[in-house]
């Protein structure tokens, strides 16, 4: 197809909103390359260069030339929402299909039918979704004229951010005929990743590559081992830092905790994570329009989020790799003369990145368990059915299934609603790849620890070299370093804050799939036999009370009076209504006194009577050795009994246990108590078990 230079520039000007806008280096060449169908193209340019102009303008020109719509595959939704708006300005009709807008799927399909969509944006996970593929994509796949793979470095095994679902993309690309237009884009690809991409995308791949240095960014690293110190530093610095920014944490829990703390200090921040739900869009807008000082985010606020005047990016913990750090920090200062990229390094980060590394692949035991279960069922199994058969957590089962089904050839495939074995066996290459990637992640982790130790002024050069860029143009930081000290008073307040938070224990409303055979119950739990929403004091092992709880359980075999006081304080603040009139607890055969002793002291502190009414009638393995909810439910089934001759009191009570995990113990205990005529049952636990 012929490239129309005039039309192309006109689109750029409309799209950017600047009547005098000109293409940046390489932009127009890339658009021309795609439109003329001169073969596959890889664009490696830092974020903010304007990769989206390339594919939106190319898509628009192709459409006007009578070609079919484009399909863009990108890992994150935040990118899509911003880009859809940008596209609309150019008159590019963009649409997205994701798990949040199931009800719009048929509308998108219809618009496709009426030829009213120019570009469809989806995630690689969506692309792997059987229902989407057979019901939506199958109808439109035959017309796609351009495939855009955003964040293409994810394809590479060597990429810092290798995503299993990109393996599917790799397979799709390998079987694409050469006449289909393909554009791959990424902001970061070192030489090894580039070589990998060339293997996947084909030998005739054309590469357009820009430089990596970000002269506006002043980088700094500060080591502050405890969370309280870092919380204190953040509260102090955020009050004086100019402009608006992002604070990155490694986990959802940290994002919520940091945001909670900063809010309690009167700072206007919000947590943004993969679990934020439909409010994410509103939060992105709030930051774009400077209505919040900062978002405290996980990587869910990621690639493609574009706020040109972002003044700072602060990391609460060190991310796992240079590329991840460069991408996140590189969001700051795109259209500013100067911006901060500050990395706080803390004691828990290595544990967290270790966990990410270790849990990235299923173990041989997990794979064998899932395959064995499938081997026994010639008609295949659904995920809940697998959960009932193997003692592996739901998350791990899903991860195992996802990774196995993305192999090529895959040892399992989904036929209808069930997973089935195929005629292929899992190759050793799978394990070799897992080992290779794990080793690579270790190296990347160490490289970041090296980065943490660099003196001020050497950070950007280190990053550019690590990414195989040219460090010649790197200039000294423009801004003075931020203070590295913390206010001791503020640190103490942060410690108190970390210990203050209670967590809600939501009552279970339904018995497990297949019911509880020994108790002879199944389906929904009778409304009158449900537990009330309870409270947990901490998360096991966390920086607040979690550490003290763990210590009490495994070392002292006794819970300290501090925990009694903290629990009583939590209950006082919580103040459930109608307020309980007595206290009871969950029995245990393994540690017969640990919980009753604590519950008795808690009852004293609350000024309530304590009564034992439940007994453990059958020794069972510890709940924590049961890896998923169905297994945990079965493990409880029939093992608890009501043992008092009659209820000592009719009124509502606190039901105390040390650890809450699957909530089945509380669910069964509440059901027993209420079936024997008790009042409302309010669960209280010292800690919630952390689980993936």
């Amino acid at each position, binding site marked *: 197809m012929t490239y129309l230079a005039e039309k192309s520039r006109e689109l750029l000007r409309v799209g950017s909103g600047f009547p005098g806008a000109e293409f940046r280096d390489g932009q127009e060449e890339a658009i021309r390359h795609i439109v003329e169908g001169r073969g596959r193209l890889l664009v490696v340019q830092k974020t903010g260069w304007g990769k989206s102009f390339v594919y939106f303008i190319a898509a628009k020109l192709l459409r006007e030339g009578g070609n079919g719509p484009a399909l863009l595959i990108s890992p994150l939704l935040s990118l899509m929402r911003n880009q859809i708006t940008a596209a609309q300005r150019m008159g590019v009709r963009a649409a997205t299909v994701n798990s949040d807008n199931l009800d719009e799927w048929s509308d998108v399909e219809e618009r496709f039918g009426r030829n009213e969509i120019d570009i469809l944006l989806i995630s690689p996970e969506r692309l792997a979704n059987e229902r989407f593929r057979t019901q939506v994509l199958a*109808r439109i796949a035959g017309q796609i004229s351009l*495939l855009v793979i955003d964040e293409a470095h994810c394809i590479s095994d060597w990429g810092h951010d290798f995503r299993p679902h990109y393996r599917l993309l790799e397979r*799709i690309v390998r079987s694409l005929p*050469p006449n289909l237009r393909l554009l791959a884009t990424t902001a970061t690809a070192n030489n090894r990743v580039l070589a990998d991409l060339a293997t996947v995308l084909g030998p005739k791949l054309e590469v357009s590559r820009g430089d990596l240095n970000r002269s506006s960014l002043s980088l700094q690293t500060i080591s502050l081992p405890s969370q309280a110190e870092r919380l204190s530093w953040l509260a102090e610095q955020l009050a004086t830092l100019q402009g608006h920014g992002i604070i990155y944490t490694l986990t959802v829990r940290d994002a919520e905790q940091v945001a909670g703390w900063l809010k309690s200090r009167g700072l206007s921040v919000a947590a943004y994570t993969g679990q934020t739900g439909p409010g994410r869009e509103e939060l992105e807008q709030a930051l774009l329009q400077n209505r919040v000082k900062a978002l405290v985010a996980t990587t869910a606020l990621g690639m493609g989020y574009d706020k040109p005047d972002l003044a700072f990016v602060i990391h609460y913990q060190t991310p796992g790799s240079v590329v991840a750090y460069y991408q996140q920090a590189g969001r700051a200062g795109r259209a500013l003369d100067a911006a901060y990229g500050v990395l706080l390094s803390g004691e828990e980060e290595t544990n967290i990145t270790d966990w990410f590394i270790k849990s990235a692949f299923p173990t041989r035991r997990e794979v064998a368990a899932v395959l064995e279960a499938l081997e026994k069922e010639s008609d295949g199994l659904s995920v809940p059915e697998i959960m009932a058969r193997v003692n592996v957590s739901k998350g791990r089962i899903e991860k195992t299934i996802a990774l196995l089904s993305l192999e090529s050839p895959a040892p399992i495939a989904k036929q209808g609603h069930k997973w089935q074995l195929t005629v292929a066996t899992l190759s050793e290459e799978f394990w070799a790849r897992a080992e290779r990637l794990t080793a690579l992640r270790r190296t990347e982790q160490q490289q970041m620890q090296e980065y943490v130790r660099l003196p001020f002024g050497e950070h950007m050069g280190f990053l550019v070299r690590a990414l195989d860029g040219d460090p010649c143009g790197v200039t000294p930081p423009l801004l003075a370093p931020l203070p590295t000290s913390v206010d001791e008073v503020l640190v103490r307040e942060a410690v108190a804050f970390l210990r203050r938070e209670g967590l809600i224990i939501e009552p279970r409303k339904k018995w497990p799939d297949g019911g509880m055979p020994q108790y002879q119950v199944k389906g929904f739990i009778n409304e009158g036999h449900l537990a009330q929403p309870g409270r947990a004091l901490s998360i096991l092992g966390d920086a607040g009370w979690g550490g003290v709880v763990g210590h009490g359980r495994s070392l002292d075999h006794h819970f300290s009076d501090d925990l009694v006081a903290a629990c009583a304080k939590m209950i006082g603040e919580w103040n459930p209504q109608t307020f309980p009139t007595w206290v009871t607890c969950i029995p245990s055969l393994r540690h017969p006194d640990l919980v009753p002793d604590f519950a008795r002291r808690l009852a004293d502190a609350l000024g309530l009577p304590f009564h034992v009414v439940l007994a453990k009638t059958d020794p069972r393995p510890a709940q924590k050795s049961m890896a998923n909810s169905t297994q945990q439910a079965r493990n409880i089934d029939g093992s608890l009994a009501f043992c008092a001759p009659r209820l000592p009191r009719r009124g509502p009570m606190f039901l105390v246990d040390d650890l809450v995990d699957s909530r089945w113990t509380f669910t069964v205990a509440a059901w027993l108590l209420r079936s024997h005529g008790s009042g409302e049952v309010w669960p209280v636990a010292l800690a919630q078990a952390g689980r993936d």
Partner: protein
Amino acid sequence: MAPKLSLNTQAILLLTAPLMAGHAPSSPDLLTLVEYNFLARHLRELQCRPADLLAADGGELLRACQPVIEEGRLQRLLARGFLLSQVIERWEARAIWVMSRADAEYPRRMKGRLKEDAPPLLYGCGDIRLLESGGLAVVGSRHVDEAVMEYAMAVGNLATRCGKTLLSGGAKGGDQAAMAGALEAGGKVLGVLGDSLEKSAMNRDHRNVIMGGQLLLISPHDPGTGFTVGNAMQRNKLIYALADAALVVSSDSNKGGTWSGAVEQLGRFPRIPVYVRSTGEPSQGLDALREKGALPWPNPRDTDELEALFSATCRNRAESIFS
């Protein structure tokens, strides 16, 4: 062992295959076998291959094909590249491969015997080396009694003992009985299916024997295609084309796929010998086939006797070619 997907196969898939990724209707533009043969001949005259249609400068070639197939239609078909990648990915995940008449791995027997009637595409699951092994085809109608089933099983078993591959259509009745007889004896089986390759490939009963290299399933139709009478009849031609000799264990008279497949084969040249069952319950259909030239099955009892039948077959064929 699976063949590698070639550029020619990609082009032929785009031109002729429904590319069934889900419940979507297939393109109305698909080339029929006759149209595709015209195009293939035209490309040969231009000294081009189907793969050249996919090249960056393929536009010129499309225009050069205008006299045979309208350019816009070719463009629409060839623009289905993303859909192609979707279905191939689906097949590959289920260990299903696809090859085309333009591939070196395409069975020589089929190409030589059927010429332009040979299906442009073959889909399969299993070791492709079984494609060239020849062997004994056993076919029969769906509704057969217990005795015929046992008979078919015994023949399958015998073929295995002689080291012959057993070919059949995978349908209920005589087909499946013969295949089961061979598989149980540890023999090699080539199933030529008229429909539902994907389902058959995922069938647990087939899994171990496919993985062990004993069973190869192939089909000229998209792996997602369901049963149609037309496809079932067409598939019989392929069974004969891949075999050295054929035995019909049961047939209706003047109707049904087994009947028409055998009659068509009896009229073909060069032909492979078609035998009909000669013991047990007499059958009108089988008698009628004998009148059309089918031979009575000489009931070989052991390896030597079956070997003799195969050598005679080769001799006959040589004679018929040189006479």
